[in-house]
């Protein structure tokens, strides 16, 4: 039997976010150096990433606003990726994937950059840095919080 395999998108480069109408305002802020969480106008719940409804009270996004955070956070856990997920990532390995808890509450999946991988630790304080990747978006990443010292 002849096998017909599924279409496979040839996405080999490290992707840059492509804003949609729902996330345009969020990504515009990143270009201006601001990472925002979504704060519900009805119940004050903070969430990340921005969504169409508040997870806590289900009011629509039109009732919420995007509020910049301090950029201070803490590493909940991390991994050093040694094997690139696709050929386009080869130049980036080793890189650090981390789950970071923001001072304001929400957590996000991100990278720790510009810091020796062997010195990264669970509980380390980190500070937001942006990497501009297009006219429309800069990706929030984190590095060691110099004010708190290393760790």
């Amino acid at each position, binding site marked *: *039997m002849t*096998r*017909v*395999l*599924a279409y*496979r*998108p040839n*996405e*080999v480069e*490290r*992707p*840059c*976010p*492509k*804003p*949609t109408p*729902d*996330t345009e305002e969020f*990504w515009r802020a990143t270009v201006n150096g601001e990472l925002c969480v979504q704060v519900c106008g009805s119940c004050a719940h903070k969430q*990340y*990433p921005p*969504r169409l409804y508040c997870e806590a009270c289900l009011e629509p996004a039109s009732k919420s606003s995007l509020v910049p955070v301090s950029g201070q956070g803490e590493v*909940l*856990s*991390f*991994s*050093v*990726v*040694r*094997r*690139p*997920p*696709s*050929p386009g*990532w080869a130049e*980036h390995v080793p*890189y650090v*994937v*981390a*789950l970071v808890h923001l001072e304001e509450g*929400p*957590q*996000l*999946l*991100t*990278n720790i950059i510009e810091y020796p*991988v062997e010195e990264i*630790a*669970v*509980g380390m304080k980190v500070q937001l840095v942006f990497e501009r*990747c297009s006219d429309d978006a800069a*990706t929030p*990443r984190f590095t060691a919080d110099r004010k708190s010292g290393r760790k």
Partner: protein
Amino acid sequence: MTGLRGQAAIVGVGTTPVGNVPELNSVQLHIEAAKAALKDSGLERDSIDGLMTFNSMTEPIPMFHAEAIAEQLGLSPHYLYTGAVGGAQPLAAVHHAAAAVSYDLCNYVLIICADNLFSGLQGHWTRTNNRAPEVEQFEFPYGATTPATYALYARAHMAAYGTTSEQLAAVAVACRKHASLRDTAQMRTPITIDDVLSSRLIGDPLHLLDCSLVSDGGAAWIVTKAERAPDSAKKPVYLLGAGEANWHHSPSHIRSLLETPAKDSGARAFAMAGLRPSDVDVAELYDCFTPMPIIQLEDLGFCKKGEGGAFVEGGRIEVGGELPIITHGGLLSHAHPGFPGSSFNVVEAVRQLRGECGAAQVKGAEIALAQGQGGSSSTHTTLIFGTEP
């Protein structure tokens, strides 16, 4: 003792060859698994009036997967369902099918899980086929591979409880030992803790041998009402407990890196069964990466939180030990064809309770637990089976 306890049974199981099976595509793996389950049950094909399948990752049939498989199998079911909660699905299907047969919605539900990830899928595509806009914009830019996502759980457990890489490796060693006792597994050459630790790092702290396989393969089984079960060819295996739990979808919403939804799915299953962890003779846990069985042992109540690392040392989890786990070799050594991965946990639990496992048989096994997990440990299903209803 509540709910579905003892109301339904598995009366036939079947598996395909696993590993590199390029001569069978995804649909063919479904048909071969179904034929094997029907043969094992001794039932006529016409008696199957329920069908549950799960879409293929490599060769998806948009919108109508179960219908397409039913047609190819020459079935006309009146209970039909295509499911999707990732690696928890094969076990969730048993839960749902048990409810259906216990309420006489249908008599015999055929559940088929199969895919050809080894020969039909390119590695980098597994992550990029999740096209949810939220995932594309807020996850893809960070290159969080599946091993890296599970490494978050490993690293957090190590930091909180002092769990070691040697303890993680003990899980891989036990799975390979069990696989070496069978002629069905994809990887059967025994390994040592040193082999695991000296294999290359994929996503710290996970080494290559801490990571599951990529495989072709599938399994199928038939669920029926308990009172109908004695009509089948082989000894029925009864569902005593079932529990599901979903805590999150995206990694930004991981509720805890130290606890998983197995805590809730397990509590529900044990409550339904009226049993305790100490009653379990064999536990077919979900081993996509070595830290996860350790965390499941804690969340399911086999040991205290933080003691999972010590629990897996010294052969306790091997056949002949206090609590044998993953006796077919699991996702780490038997096969991991993607969403169907945990289907082999169901089949192995049934075969253990029938006493069919040869050198890997847990002597006198009467109660078996099977665990399924999907996403980034987002969704869990726990099933508890027994030799008597």
